């Protein structure tokens, strides 16, 4: 990944790096096992102080998101991606509405489950094709 700096943001440079790593973890651009750029790579790219990069990486380590292996580099140990969880609630509500409708039309539990599983299969087939 590549970092960028916003000189006018007023946010300390090390926090900008911390935020950009977290953002990448949230978006899935970085995954467990991925290596962060080395301190030298970052300073040569951005012309910033190596201590600033080290501070940012220490902060990320402190938060349990990365781990430094001496001599090898800093690696991601935790991901912040969970795309589904935040949508579960609204999906469940939509599904409940659908179930109420299905009951009203006279479907029983067995027919409902059959309809759901056949639809899931059908959609899957269509995506693979």
């Amino acid at each position, binding site marked *: 990944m590549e970092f960028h*700096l916003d*000189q006018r943001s007023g946010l300390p440079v090390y926090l900008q790096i911390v935020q950009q790593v977290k953002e990448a973890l949230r978006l899935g651009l970085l995954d467990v096992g991925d290596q962060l750029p080395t301190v030298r790579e970052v300073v*040569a*790219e*951005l*012309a*910033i*102080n*190596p*201590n600033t990069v080290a501070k940012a990486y220490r902060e990320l380590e402190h938060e349990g998101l990365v781990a430094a292996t001496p001599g090898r580099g800093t690696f991601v140990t935790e991901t912040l991606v969970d795309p589904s969880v935040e949508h579960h609630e609204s999906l469940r509500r939509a599904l409940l509405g659908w179930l109420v409708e299905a009951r009203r039309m006279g479907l029983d539990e067995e027919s409902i489950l059959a309809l759901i599983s056949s639809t899931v299969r059908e959609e899957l087939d269509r995506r693979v094709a």
Partner: protein
Amino acid sequence: MTAPLETTALGKRHRSRWALRDCTLTAGEAEIVGVAGPNGAGKSTLLGLAVGLLAPTEGAVRVAGRDPRRDAGALQEVGYVAQDAPLYRPFSVGEMLEFGRATNRRWDGELALELLGGLAPRTPVVDLTPGERSQLALALALAKRPSLLLLDEPFARLDPLAGRHFLQVLMDGAAETGSTVLLATRVVADIERVCDRIVLLGEGRVRLDGPVEQLLATHRLLTGARRPLGRIRGVDEIVRERSSGRQLTLLVRTNGLPIDASWSVDEIGLEDLLLAYMAPEQLQAPPPPEPSRLRWHG
């Protein structure tokens, strides 16, 4: 653990004028210290004392615990890039590297080449651009893997692009060697993004010394109605006072308590902060237009 650089009540007098006086500071391991101040503030004198080119008039300077004037071993620990990046102009880049290898006990030729990037060893020094010349001087200084790297106005002759590239190579080298860096410059904007700490010199004295983050966190601009000034809650010291019309603007050092709510409070950037400490009088409202020395006999 001895500090890479330590000065105690250090002073240097040139004839009747003190170029530096009562300078006490310590640069920690791998710290990147910006030495700021206007021309004649004592920046070059401080660097010259640290590298043993100048003898102190009073006080002491120690590099890795040793006296740079008496102990040749101390000089092995210092990399120095003087203002005009002096190089042997008839030499080629490769010959400069060979010279460095031959004259230094510790020499990392691989690092020198890495920091030089694509600079061809056969190029004569005379044919280098100012940016390349600075880069070569920097690579030579860093190849010693010094505990202390001193740079005197490295940006003075560089255009913004070359300056940026110089900074990149410098930071790369600092990351690799773990050297403590003292970067003397008049232009704070050049070094703002890289410094852990700022030492501000003015007329030979240390005006301000502290970690950049702490300096920014403990200074605020207060604006409010003009009034007689007593103690202000949340304020330790008024650094600069400026008034225009009925408005008063103060630069203050805060003490962490909430600031008196009758003031509106703003953050201040590093450059403005240092300017205020450098020359408070220059930032005051312009003086009345009538020059006092001229009399009108009409």
